[in-house]
């Protein structure tokens, strides 16, 4: 059995603290027995994840359609293919990642040798999000398994079809003594959070992030928090307008209709350039999604009515009335909102105060593009920041001055697909990073190991302490050879 089947009798979940404790105890036993440590176990589990994704692509796409009306194209590319890539990379690199790293030792510890071992942390909990419910659930699992941990995955209940698919597939393809899925909502999550974990990896929002970290503090459990924030896109007038627009569109509406943590949240451009930018957006949007985007199969819907009414509230805010320059149509019964652009919204409007996480794109205008940097830095640090420009100086300034988890110049979201750079936030956008080797490291303890022989001890290390020993130690540490000799021969007056 790979998943804790939540028996729903009268709407009451049976997965309580006791069940959670039992589950963790079982996994801890398997971990302590060393089951997850071998290269072969890790390899077989990664192969299992890969195979499971390959063999069920259509089912994955179907459940994503049920949960989010996600276009199949997006499902295949951003969820299935991305996960397969992670598995393949981990399978290819795992041996290298697992090799202990030699470390240099210094003269003070001579003679010795040292290395850094990557050791599994133990039993880890992964709590995932609903917007990329397949990829974001399993991508951290890849890292956790590669590093040799036992894992409990709690997929988001807001994407129920994918959650139950994950429970079913993980049970079929992975080692159920060490990798488990627990489905459920707040009560199940709370039961899990009461347990002692060796790492908690959470993807979601800052409010829950705080709860997770406070719960982790009780057991001194380290956390990775992948949160979000208002990721800005700055568009300079010296840019390739058409390409910039297209790249913003795929990063915004082409990523789950804006329900993605790295989607551009808002745009900053100059007053003069804004009309041109809006026109270009209109033109490209129509090319991509046709004249009736509410009916387009290439756009996800809003995940549920809660989020639909949250987004509606942002649009109905008095402060932004009359600011919509494109779109604005909604269909509550289908949970669909058209790609919508708002121009010159005030900075104290609701839409500029919270992460939008949907198909609304406000544009702020400034007189000089450099002002945008101060606007970004005056808020909390976003997960990503984007800049579109040909201006070399501006690029440099952006990269050094703007604080963000990651950034891309002249494109959006592509850094997420680069496994050689860490993906993660800073400040309000999160802590810790993953992807590629960084995932392996996030789930490993870096154990320092020193090997010494019994030879080569200097008496000066030990009491009784004398002033000669003090002089010698000073000389050794500062590396002054003459003082060393001087101290030994009693010549120094140091």
């Amino acid at each position, binding site marked *: 059995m790979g998943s804790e089947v939540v028996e729903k009798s009268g709407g009451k979940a049976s997965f309580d603290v006791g069940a959670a404790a039992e589950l963790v105890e079982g996994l801890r036993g398997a971990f302590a027995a060393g089951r997850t440590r071998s290269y072969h176990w890790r390899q077989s589990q990664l192969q299992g994840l890969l195979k499971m994704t390959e063999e069920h692509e*259509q089912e994955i*796409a179907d459940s994503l359609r049920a949960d989010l009306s996600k276009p*199949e*194209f*997006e499902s*295949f*590319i951003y969820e299935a293919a*991305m996960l397969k890539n992670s598995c393949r990379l981990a399978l290819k690199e795992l041996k290298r990642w697992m090799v202990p790293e030699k470390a240099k*030792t*210094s003269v003070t*510890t001579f003679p*010795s040798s*040292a290395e*850094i071992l990557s*050791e599994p942390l*133990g039993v880890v909990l992964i709590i995932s999000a609903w917007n990329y419910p397949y990829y974001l659930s399993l991508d951290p699992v890849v890292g956790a398994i590669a590093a040799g941990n036992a894992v409990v995955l709690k997929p988001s209940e807001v994407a129920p079809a994918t959650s139950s698919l994950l429970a079913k597939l993980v049970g079929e393809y992975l080692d159920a003594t060490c990798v488990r899925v627990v489905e459920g909502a707040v009560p199940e999550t709370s039961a899990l959070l009461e347990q002692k974990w060796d790492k908690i990896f959470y993807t979601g929002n800052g409010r829950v992030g*705080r*709860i997770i*970290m*406070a719960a982790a*503090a009780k057991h*001194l459990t*380290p956390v990775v*928090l992948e949160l979000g924030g208002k990721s800005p896109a700055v568009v300079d007038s010296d840019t*390739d307008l058409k390409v910039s627009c*297209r790249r913003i569109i*795929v990063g915004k509406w*082409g990523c789950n209709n804006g329900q993605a943590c790295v989607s551009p949240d808002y745009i900053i451009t100059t007053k003069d350039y804004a009309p041109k930018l809006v026109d270009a957006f209109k033109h490209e949007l129509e090319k*991509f999604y046709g004249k009736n985007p509410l009916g387009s*199969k*290439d756009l996800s819907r809003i995940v549920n009515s809660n989020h639909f009414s949250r987004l509606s509230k942002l649009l109905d805010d008095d402060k932004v009335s009359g600011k919509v320059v494109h779109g604005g149509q909604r269909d509550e019964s289908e949970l669909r909102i058209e790609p919508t652009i708002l121009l010159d919204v005030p900075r104290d409007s609701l839409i500029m105060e919270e992460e939008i996480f949907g198909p609304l794109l406000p544009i702020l205008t400034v007189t000089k593009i450099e002002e945008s940097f101060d606007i970004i830095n005056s808020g909390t640090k976003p997960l990503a920041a984007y800049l579109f420009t040909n201006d070399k100086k501006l690029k440099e300034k952006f990269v050094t001055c703007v604080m963000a*988890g*990651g*950034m*891309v*110049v002249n*494109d959006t979201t592509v*850094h997420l697909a*680069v496994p*050689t*750079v*860490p*993906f993660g936030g*800073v400040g*309000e956008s999160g802590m810790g990073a993953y992807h590629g080797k960084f995932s392996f490291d996030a789930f490993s303890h*870096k*154990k*320092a*190991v*020193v*090997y010494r022989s019994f030879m080569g001890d200097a008496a000066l290390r*030990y*009491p*009784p*302490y004398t002033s000669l*020993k*003090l002089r010698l*130690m000073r000389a050794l*540490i*500062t590396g002054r050879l003459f003082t060393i000799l001087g101290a030994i021969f009693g010549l120094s007056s140091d």
Partner: protein
Amino acid sequence: MEDLEGELGAMREYHDGGNTRDASWRRAQLRGLLLLLLENQAEIFSALQQDLGKHPAEAYRDEIGSAVKSINYALHHLKGWMSNKKAKLPAVALLTTAAIIPEPLGLVLIISSWNFPIGLSIESLIGVISAGNSVVLKPSELAPTCSSFLARKMPLYLDTKAVRVIEGGPAIGEQLLLQRWDKIFFTGSTRVGRIVMTAAAKHLTPVTLELGGKCPAIVDTLSSSWDKKAAVERILGAKFSACAGQACIGIDYILVEQKFCSALVELMRVNLKTMFGENPKQSRSIARIVNRHHFQRLKSLLDDPKIRGSVVHGGFMDEDDLFIEPTILVDPPLESAIMEDEIFGPLLPIITLNKIEDSIRFLKSRPKPLSIYAFTKDESLQRRILSETSSGSVVFNDALIQYLADALPFGGVGGSGIGKYHGKFSFDEFSHQKAVAWRSFLVDFWFRFPPWNGYKLQLFQNFYEYDYIGIVLTVLGIGKQRAIHLS
């Protein structure tokens, strides 16, 4: 502390103005730290003597010297640490470059401990400053002379707009923890570590917790007399001569085979005499217990007659002088405070086992310590220790020296802490690794944009699998088609 918010606000503004970012600023501060140590040695020696009764040689070895070494190391490597790391990209990422850029986190809070009040404060400051952060240091109020030394002298050597010392006890600590920080670095106990992390969660502040735990020393039955002597010297040095056992990486207890135990104790007696003389209290070579509270705590560990009866060496205590003699116990009951809590003082229990391999099972059933020490030449035992037990670090045939190795991460795991520092690891611990990708406007695969169709999907699949031939074939319309048909 009148206007803490205001003061921190000013520091944040100064930091946001980019004043701490330049390599030149960081270097100047590191040099300031170096001068602070070098120009005030006498005062530091006397402060450590006063707070903890440390001999200057011990003080130099553990606090000044090790910090000087680390500063020099940081000055030497700073440029390399600060430089951007180019990231490799697959060939399909045409006209794209990527790099990892280390960026200062912002305003950092360091809450330091009393056992190495100068050394540990400086060691963490080195990382904070190297990474270009602003910082508030709260030294421990339990080492008051050292705390006031830092508060008085640091402003003379460092940029006071970015580096501040705030003195105080738990009340001040609590007030500081209410503020928003970009990182909190804490050295101390597990109990306070939990409080720190809970407070940090409110502002989503990442934490580094340098805690402790019961660090064991596994002592194999050594045969050569040289090895035995070296091992015993190293053990005694690591237990009694580093702040009288009040050290997070000090040896807490020993695991040894029954048959080797009496020889080991005998050898320890002989060497203790060489180190501390007939009357250890008279020797200036052993530090004092930090205060009466800790003295009482240590004293009460021996209260139980069963434990008292297990003392085979030492046991003398002088409360007025806060002195506890190096004390060795053999096989105190395992379910006693001395074997359950971190001892943090000059009491050394020895637990005997039938076979030295039993030590692994013994350790596996306990919380993960900051360090495991093993004195053995048996390579298979070494391998088993490495792969079957977990701890912050492992040192074979020595103790404490891992603290001095700049190339090794120093930090705990599980109950012994979160995060790591020293050398480059300190720099990383106080930096955000910002991922940056640069793209040109020139190349965009036309299949990147909606409306979607099966043809674009096929191209993407080839693209992700770096299947260049597949891309060409698909473009030419002769590639193998996917079984999936898009609705």
